[in-house]
């Protein structure tokens, strides 16, 4: 566990490394990245990887720009999982599966959606969204909140 943490810290310190798919461009309040069972405070400039989850507290919000120029942001009390991400900067082929477990999400789709309209999918607990080149927002409210 300690080694995993050290390796993670090293990755962050080293900046862009293989496996980075985006970068945090905005972060206010409490914002975390969950990676491989660990939870790290997220700050502006930190790389985002496939399988990361972006988690915000009641006062938090954060924005991420991905390598295909997609931009995503979350508002307070949100959990967004980057489930799958791949992008070929030469062919613009790729796929992007994200899942909003709770909270609010704003999305502007990027180059892979321009190239192939079915490349991006966003899930919520009850729905799955296909994206055809656009800007949109999603909100999931839990019972009792």
């Amino acid at each position: 566990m300690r080694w995993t943490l050290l390796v993670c810290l090293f990755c962050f310190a080293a900046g862009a490394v293989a496996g980075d798919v985006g970068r945090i461009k905005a972060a206010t309040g409490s914002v975390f990245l969950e990676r491989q069972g660990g939870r790290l405070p997220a700050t502006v400039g930190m790389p985002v990887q496939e399988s990361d989850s972006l988690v915000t507290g009641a006062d938090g919000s954060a924005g991420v720009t991905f390598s295909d120029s997609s931009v995503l942001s979350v508002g307070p009390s949100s959990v967004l999982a980057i489930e799958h991400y791949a992008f070929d900067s030469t062919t613009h082929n790729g796929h992007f599966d994200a899942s909003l477990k709770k909270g609010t999400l704003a999305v502007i789709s990027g180059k892979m959606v321009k190239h192939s309209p079915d490349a991006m999918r966003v899930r919520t607990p009850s729905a799955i969204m296909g994206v055809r080149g656009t800007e949109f927002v999603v909100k999931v409210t839990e019972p009792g909140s």
Partner: protein
Amino acid sequence: MFALVFGALVVLGAIYAQPAPLEETVLVLPSPDEHVVQPPLEETVVVLPSPDGHTGTVVVQRGGERHVLNRPFAASRTSGGQSEMTQLSDAEVRQSFGAALKALPAPPSTFLLYFVTATDELTDASKDELKQILAALKERPVPDIMVIGHTDTVGELETNDLLSAQRAERVKGFLVEIGIPAAQIQTAGRGERELLVPTADNIDEPRNRRVEINVR
């Protein structure tokens, strides 16, 4: 009596000696504070017009139901098991999604700079424009930048590959000067392989002598 107590102890001992599979099951459950969302009370999806006025399409598939959202502020909503297509106002969207929208990073943009024939010197017009471009780049938090050099078709392919790389490096130098970390700037030289204005070979075309700055 002794036999009974002993028997009970043996049974208890056997129970204690057992591994505790129940505990393991509990351990793999995600923490209850998040990730586990019981049937949600409400979900809303809204399509927004982009700044250029264009509105794309989001297809919402919920069970057997399918909502196609393709007009500004068209929304799909589910609440307590009931779903509907509806229309929200700009103000309603700002109210519900204000924090997320405020955190949305600026969409990536592209700038072009032009060069004097066969050199890595900017044209006078591009020198003027450089200041505005640098100011725009400085406003972005942690920019990721790709600088791509190009040439016109005058000269040999290899010479142009080299010249285009030099142009890209020159522009990278300007960016580093204003404090953008070199590690966040990638460069590439495309020579005459990607003409902005298609021409025959050996054509002096100023618009092809350029560097493209992509920033996200």
